[in-house]
Each structure stands twice: as structure tokens, then as C-alpha cells.
């Protein structure tokens, strides 16, 4: 209950980026669309830059990145 109240009162999301690296094939859609949230490693595969809770603006762009991943490697979850 307190968790619920905290999230509502703070107006913050508790959503995080969950990247399944084994699914990533390096299409690069995420780090092109949201370069502050994702980066490329030396092979061009995705790495997550923001591992904590996302603010509203980050959540929107992380969701867009997830929806453009051809391999379904990105999920946005609590």
C-alpha cells in the first residue's frame, strides 16, 4: 500500500528498461531513437544506460525504442 501511495504521490513511474541481450542482434534502433537511454558496445549490440526507474519523458522514449526493436529484445517493466 505504501508503495502504491508513494508512486502516485510522487507522480513517478517505477518502470525500468529490461534488455534481453541474447535476443539483441545489433539492429541499432534503440540507441538511434533514444541515445540517452541506450548505447552501442564495440560490436554494435545494445547496452542500457539507465537501469533505474524512468521518468515520464524517458518512459515515452524507452517505449518507442522497445516498439521498434525487430527482435523484441527490449521490455519496459516494473
Amino acid at each position: 500500500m505504501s508503495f502504491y501511495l508513494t508512486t502516485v504521490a510522487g507522480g513517478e513511474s517505477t518502470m525500468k528498461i529490461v534488455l534481453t541481450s541474447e535476443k539483441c542482434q545489433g539492429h541499432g534502433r534503440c540507441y538511434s531513437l533514444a541515445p540517452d537511454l541506450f548505447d552501442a558496445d564495440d560490436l554494435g549490440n545494445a547496452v542500457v544506460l539507465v537501469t533505474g526507474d524512468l521518468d515520464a519523458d524517458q518512459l515515452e522514449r524507452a517505449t518507442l525504442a522497445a516498439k521498434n526493436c525487430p527482435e523484441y529484445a527490449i521490455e519496459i517493466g516494473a
Partner: protein
Amino acid sequence: MDKAPVTDFATDFDHTDPAWVADPYPIMADLRERCPIAHSDRYGGMWVPVLHEDVQAIANDTEHFTSRSVVVGPGRPGVDAPPAPIGVAPPISSDPPFHSIARRLLLPAFAPKPVQNLEGFSQEFCRSLLDAMGDADVINASFDYAQHIPVGLIAKMVGLPPEDGDLFRGFVHDILEAVDLPIEQRMERFQPVDAYLTRVIEDHMENPREDLTSFLLEAEILGNKLEPHHVFGTMVLLVVAGIDTTWSAIGSSIWHLAQHPDDLARLVAEPELLPTAIEEFLRAYAPVTMARLVKEDFEFEGCPMKKDDWVLLGFPAANRDPAFFDRADEVLIDREENRHAAFGLGIHRCLGSNLARMEMTIALQEFIARFPKFELADPQAVTFSQGQVRGPRNLPIRILERA
């Protein structure tokens, strides 16, 4: 070679049939309704999935499908296609577990940062092509522009003399478009490529330099230098895979804009939309169809597939599947959600996708900046390539406004 025209693509599919070459999209739509996996006795037996879910499933199923030959040939490959897991042009022709070793070797050269370092060169190169057009009212956006860009880039990366561009572009054409020639003639066509690349490799062995050819000659897998046929095969891949594909992608984008003045005006006014528009051009006009071979007799979605049957892996068809995309047959340059498969799916995702996107971006930016208004000079004169890479070849464009 004269072939009987296709009367029903569902049972007698042929990707070199003039009807498919001219406009494949209505045929894909028809097959989705009726099949949805078409078959053909041509090429020794071939299956053609057209749904996104089937293309995705096959691309990810390396247990039942092999990549040891990715370009459909005149008959069943038999011993002509080198065996898995290495294949003729690693890593595109390789299967696990060798595939990831060969791919890992090349990935760093095509990662975003090294590709970004080629932006300045690309921009100058595109501008020089536009300068060479002078003030002609009608230019050929394919032969005078799009086709030179990937040639210039790959020549620089691999270390080929820039003046050889025309020469090896001819080789690529002979390899990719000659799919329905008998095997002996295809092998004959391959000989000049063989001789040319052998000379390039020998020259690099004597005079090593900072390019991909010298890199491959020095590279090691598990402490051993690459086998000569691995170096040679990868060179073939780099030269062949990067040229007609990107040429087609740039050409299709210009072809679209020449017919959609609203889209062109919007990109001139809102250049920040270009990356989104490029993804949509990639989706709607995906140039590349790959192939797989069935490893052993196996039933897939009710289809009795036989060992060494071809499977034509149509990423262009997947990208037009209305079960997967809203308004799949419309080109929406501001489409934000675009999970397209133009660069393939699974472990064989196009190695050069960052390079291809960079080339498309610079090529379109520069073309639009120079020519903010243009149209097709002669729609009837536009021709498309045949085979597994689709894009406009003859593309006369009338310039309506120049910057």
C-alpha cells in the same frame, strides 16, 4: 534463357518473372490470402513464405534451415554449395557455431562509431556526384548517383582502387542478376571476380595497409590465421552484399519522393524527420530477400519441405504483412512504430546495416538539399532489378528546382 511465364504464383512461384519484377506487392497480398506459403518446382523446388510470422520463424530456426547457400540458383545446390557451417562467403553463408566466430570478427568494423567516421567522406563523395551532373534538367538518379555511393564507400573500406568501381560493380551485377543461368555459365561469370579479388589480396599481402583486406589477412580465429578461402569469401561478401542493396535502397527512396511531392516538401521543411522516413522507406521498399536451404525433410506449417529445397526468405513480404503493420501497403514517412525486418531477423542481421543507414541518410540529405523539387522524367522508363535484390535501375529524374 527463355522460361515459361508464371500463371499462378501460389504453385509456380518465380521471383524472376517479369510480373513479380515489375510490381511484387499485389502478388504478395494475393498469396497471403490464399497460401500463405507459396511453392514452386522451379530451381529444383522452392518455398516462399509471405507472412511476417513465418519469415521470422524461419530466420530464427537454424536447426531446420541452413544458410550454406543464400542466393537461389538454377537447381538443387547439392555439392555446388560448400557445406555448413562455413560456406562460401562467411559469415552470411555460415551456420552456428562457426557463424558467430566469423561474424564477431567483422562486427567492430561496422559498429556505429567507425561508420560515423566515414560520414565526412560520404558527404564529399555525394556532393562530387551532384556537382558532376552540372545543370542538366534530367539526371539519372540511379546510374549517376545511387549506384556510385556504396561502391565508393566499400572501395574505401576494403581498400580497392576507386577507379575500379565500374569494374567490380559489373561483377556484382553478373553474380546477383544471373540467377536463372545454368551453373556452368554462372561459374564462368565468377572467374573475373575471382581473378580480381585474388590480385587485390596478393597486393595487400605485399603491401599491408589500414583497411579491411589487411585486417582479414592478419585476423586470427582461435590463434590461427584465416584460411585463404575464408578471406576470399568474406571479400566477396563485403563487395557483393553492400552494393546492389544500398544502391537499391537509395534509389527506391528517391523514386518514392519523385512521385510524392508532399513527402518531398515535408522532408525539405522538416529535415529532422529524415531518420523516421528512412526507416519507412526501408520497410516499404526493403531491397533484400535472402534464401535458406531445408536441412532435412521436415514439415513446416503444413508444408512438406524436403532436404535441399530452397526457402525464399522475403523480408519485403514480411514488411508488408497487414497482420503485423497497420496500413502496411501505405508509405507513411512519419511512422513512429516500425519494427521492420529490412535488415533481416535473427543471427544474420545485416552486418552492414549501420553503414547502409549512414549512406542512405547522407545520400538523401545531399540530394534533397541540392534538388528540393523533382519528379519522374518518364515513369514508363523506370526499370527494376531482378533477383533477390530489388530496386530501381533506370531512374530518370526531372529537376524542378535546384538550390
